[in-house]
């Protein structure tokens, strides 16, 4: 998701994005380790399990906020490239998981947890953005 900043505002936005993502990633690691430890050692009740299971979602949403702020600071061509990469990543993730769902149900493929959807989407978005940038060079 690397874009050349256009102006001083865009450079500031990129710095904010990097900082926001770093903070969110650190909070995510903390939330995952904290939740796993609490589930393993504290034997929490069902309602607490629900809260702990959703805990890592909060920093993941902070990542989304950091990206949306960054996206708003890009110029129209950069937004176009981001949009194309998002479409590719969305198509790959949605149709990939859809197809794998049928393979699980009808062809005895091993079960994969839904937790992999977000990492697959993020990775595909990164790869797609590199591909889109190369296409416009």
């Amino acid at each position, binding site marked *: 998701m690397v874009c*050349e900043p*256009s*102006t001083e505002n*865009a450079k500031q936005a990129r710095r904010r994005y990097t900082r926001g993502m770093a903070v969110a990633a650190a909070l995510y690691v903390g939330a995952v380790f904290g939740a796993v430890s609490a589930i393993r050692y504290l034997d929490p009740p069902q309602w607490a399990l629900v809260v702990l299971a959703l805990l890592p979602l909060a920093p993941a949403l902070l990542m989304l906020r950091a990206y949306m702020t960054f996206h708003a600071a890009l*110029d*129209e*061509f950069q937004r176009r490239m981001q949009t194309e990469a998002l479409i590719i990543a969305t198509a790959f993730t949605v149709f990939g998981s859809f197809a794998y769902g049928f393979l699980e149900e009808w062809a005895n493929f091993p079960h994969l947890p839904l937790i992999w959807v977000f990492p697959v989407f993020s990775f595909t978005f990164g790869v797609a953005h590199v591909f889109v940038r190369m296409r*416009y060079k």
Partner: protein
Amino acid sequence: MRNRLKVLRAERNWSQADLAEKLDVSRQSVNAIETGKYDPSLPLAFKIAAIFALPIEQIFSADEAAQAAE
């Protein structure tokens, strides 16, 4: 769509970065417009026209019109 951005920029001795700064866009955006890989929005096209102090049709032309003129 075709454009004369590269020629107009060269006449003024501006680099892509210079033009990008005047337009408040990235250098890669100027490059994509110049090479015809990206057609700018109408507001950006008007901004380009204003910077070069030219009517928009003297900078941008449709492919068909350009071919017909040749």
